[in-house]
């Protein structure tokens, strides 16, 4: 194989006129010129590879950064926050010396191309973020969005995605404890595969991604590096530097969960023996990202010999090695005298580990290949000084018309019989139907600490076996609401996740998010994004739950058509004793059902408007975060003091959906009475926020209503747990058998 001379730093300085394919690598002209300006010369091919991936939208957040700053600027004070935005994942104090780290990420596009592997590697990536903080991963969640349920491509994408998430997460031994499945035609060519993970550690075990201490060794461990995900770098390698080589590089990365499981165990063992100074997972932008971030967050520089990277494919060029996104790799910084022990642990777990470089006292990141220096940069310029765009944004001109198309004016059922039919149709509609066919493909029990898993309002994991300390997590997002009003829509997502956590008895502490939007180059999309971020930041400030980290996924669109703006919000909560958790299922006949909160006519973006009228218009439900906070306090107090035996938050599908779910899960029916001042339709189907239904043992009724009264939370007695049907007094009844069939057969019929 013939090769032009190695493009070293010297060579680059001596050949200023060599043209590099910066445009093919996704850089804009002015971005390339910035690189030249920073370096004072043209970049080498390897440097160009690094800058181009690190300055990509995905890695640099160049379109979103200016807005995301609000999460920091408006962050509420929180004693719980131990590590904030900017690290691999945020860390929250949950008491008793424990800290919890959690984060949600997207793997949308890869999952459309290859559903199984795309989704699987999405789980793999988020879990490595958690390990990199020093934590043992304890659970995963998976908020998902697909095209229309009956679209043929959904039958390709959904089963693959679900099998991939399960295949990877199950094999890692991580219980899947929550998520979402939403169908909407707007996600047809752009399914959203978000994956979240939670990890637990002791405070003293928190690790950060930084390389300090000159002389410390940089160890790459895990899978060998192959040609995965380096489409761009192949251009660089084949066209400019080595025409002879076939640029046959896989666009799809294949995950190896077994390798990742070994990576988890050996990393945790190394942490336990305090062998690690700094650590970083290899995700997007692979070694480029890991080395530049480790170096720029530390005190010194770093020198790396790329020849020492173990390869799966010996034909890889140095540029490709730097950009490769091969999965299941980590990079650790280890003091020289601890290197042997570190390598020993890796060997114990059959994990390949190699010293590839060391920390220097300089402030440069230098990378060598075949004896030549091919990278010599200030790592900060790669990792942190990427371009920042103030993209233009503007409220789209169709927004007014959309909001004026009021869903409250849609024709409503005229008779009790018609209302009954609509309820049945709603309960059976793909978005409201049971997701058991999906969630039963996930292990909920592994690790033996699962207190609550789907279909509960939030997943809950026991953290300490002695004290019963636990954490809860819920993820929510409603693209329909956000489309009608992105500011309110983001707050509704936050409110729902917050409420879901509180409904199970846990106190909401912190937030992570995954912001899924269309193209930032469209001012309308950019406005949706800006509004959603502003809404979420304002909401978090008001609720006192800081954003600890998250992820942005842009360009989710096909041609001109963007997905609904879809901010997905994850709320993490803590519960002192998991024995006090509140489940969704009705527990005992005779218990009294109370509706907490206010109900008004709110049908904009509702499930009813979608299922019955295929309509999206008007305004989403109003948000009252003070009310959400009060509701949460009541739910938590009631759980702690044993005043309620079950609870379910109200969200899409309204009250009837919640009652049906509690009834089916508990195998006990309910008799409901329409409260004064409400009609049956609004009572059953409105989607007013800030509400929950609780089941109160008769012995606790007085204590419970007194508490609500004293705190000023409306609590309306709406019925009783009873029988084997759901009866709406004076209107209609539906047997549990009929409801079960409607609720549970839809998804298997579509997908099995």
């Amino acid at each position, binding site marked *: 194989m013939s090769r032009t001379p190695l493009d070293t730093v010297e060579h680059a300085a001596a050949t200023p006129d060599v043209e590099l394919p910066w445009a093919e690598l996704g850089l804009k002209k002015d971005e390339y010129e910035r690189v030249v300006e920073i370096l004072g010369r043209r970049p080498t091919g390897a440097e160009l590879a690094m800058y181009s991936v690190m300055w990509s939208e995905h890695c640099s957040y160049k379109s979103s950064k200016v807005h995301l700053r609000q999460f920091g600027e408006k962050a509420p004070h929180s004693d719980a926050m131990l590590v904030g935005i900017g690290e691999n994942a945020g860390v929250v104090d949950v008491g008793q010396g424990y800290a919890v780290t959690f984060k949600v990420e997207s793997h949308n596009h890869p999952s459309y*191309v*290859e559903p199984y*592997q795309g989704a699987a590697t999405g789980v793999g990536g988020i879990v490595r973020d958690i390990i990199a903080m020093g934590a043992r991963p304890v659970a995963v969640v998976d908020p998902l969005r697909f095209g229309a349920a009956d679209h043929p491509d959904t039958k390709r994408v959904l089963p693959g995605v679900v099998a991939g998430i399960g295949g990877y997460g199950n094999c890692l031994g991580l219980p899947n404890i929550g998520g979402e499945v939403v169908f909407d035609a707007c996600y047809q060519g752009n399914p959203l595969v978000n994956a979240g993970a939670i990890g637990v550690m002791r405070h003293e075990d928190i690790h950060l991604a930084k390389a300090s201490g000159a002389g410390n060794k940089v160890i790459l461990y895990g*899978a060998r590096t*192959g*040609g*995965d995900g380096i489409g761009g770098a192949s251009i660089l390698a084949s066209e400019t530097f080595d025409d002879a080589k076939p640029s*046959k*590089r*896989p*666009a*799809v*990365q*294949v995950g*190896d969960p*077994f*390798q990742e499981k070994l990576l988890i165990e050996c990393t945790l063992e190394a942490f336990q023996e305090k062998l690690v100074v700094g650590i970083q997972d290899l995700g997007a932008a692979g070694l480029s990202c890991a080395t530049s971030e480790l170096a720029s967050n530390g005190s010194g520089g770093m020198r790396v010999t790329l020849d020492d990277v173990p390869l*799966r*494919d010996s034909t890889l060029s140095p540029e490709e090695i730097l950009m490769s996104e*091969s*999965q299941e790799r980590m990079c650790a910084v280890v003091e020289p005298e601890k290197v042997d022990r570190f390598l020993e642990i890796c060997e114990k777990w*059959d994990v390949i580990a190699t010293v590839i470089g060391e920390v220097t006292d300089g402030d440069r990141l230098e990378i060598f290949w075949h004896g030549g220096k091919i990278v010599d940069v200030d790592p900060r310029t790669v990792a942190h000084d990427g371009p920042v765009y103030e993209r233009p944004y503007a409220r789209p001109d169709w927004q007014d018309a959309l909001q004026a198309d009021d869903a409250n004016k849609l024709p409503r059922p005229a008779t009790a019989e018609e209302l009954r039919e609509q309820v049945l149709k709603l309960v059976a509609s793909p978005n409201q139907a049971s997701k058991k066919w999906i969630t039963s493909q996930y292990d909920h029990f592994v690790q033996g600490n699962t207190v609550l898993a789907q279909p509960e309002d939030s997943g809950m994991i026991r953290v300490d076996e002695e004290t019963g300390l636990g954490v809860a997590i819920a993820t929510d997002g409603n693209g329909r609401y956000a489309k009608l009003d992105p500011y309110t829509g983001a707050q509704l997502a936050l409110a729902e996740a917050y409420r879901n956590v509180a409904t199970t008895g846990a106190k909401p502490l912190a937030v992570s998010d995954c912001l899924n939007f269309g193209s930032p180059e469209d001012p309308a999309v950019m406005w949706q994004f800006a509004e959603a971020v502003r809404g979420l930041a304002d909401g978090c400030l008001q609720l006192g739950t800081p954003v600890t980290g998250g992820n942005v996924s842009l360009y989710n669109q096909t041609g001109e058509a963007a997905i609904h703006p879809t901010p997905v919000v994850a709320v993490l909560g803590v519960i002192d004793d998991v024995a006090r958790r509140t489940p969704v299922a009705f527990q005992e006949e005779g218990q009294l059902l109370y509706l907490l909160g206010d109900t008004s006519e709110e049908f904009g973006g509702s499930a009813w408007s979608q299922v019955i009228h295929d309509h999206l218009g008007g305004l989403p439900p109003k948000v009252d975060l003070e009310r959400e906070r009060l509701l949460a306090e009541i739910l938590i107090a009631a759980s702690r003091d044993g005043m309620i035996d079950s609870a379910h938050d109200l969200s899409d599908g309204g009250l009837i959906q919640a009652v049906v779910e509690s009834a089916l899960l508990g195998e006990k029916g309910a008799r409901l009475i329409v409260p004064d001042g409400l009609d049956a339709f609004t009572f059953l189907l409105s989607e007013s926020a800030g509400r929950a239904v609780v089941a109160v043992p008769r012995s606790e009724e007085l204590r419970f209503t007194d508490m609500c009264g004293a705190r000023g939370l409306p609590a309306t007695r709406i019925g009783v747990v009873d029988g084997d049907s759901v009866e709406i007094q004076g209107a209609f009844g539906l047997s549990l058998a009929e409801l079960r069939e409607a609720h549970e057969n839809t998804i298997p019929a579509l997908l099995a």
Partner: protein
Amino acid sequence: MARVVVDVMLKPEILDPQGQAVQRALPRLGFEGISDVRQGKRFELEVEGPVDEAALARIHDLAESFLANTVIEDFVVKVEEVAGAAE
């Protein structure tokens, strides 16, 4: 009746964790001298009627659209006379 076999293998540049795991186990089992193992799928299709060009073309389509995931896999279609012999 004829048997058509479709062999589906991961593309060479795609990671094959299964093959790797098998290969790594070999020395422990006392097997040396095998430098690489790849694991793929084998489909045996029993075809009614003659396996002519048209039939093979259709099976090729089937392999391409359904049996193999051509994003990550290659495939080969072969005719195998069923010689009555058990394997």
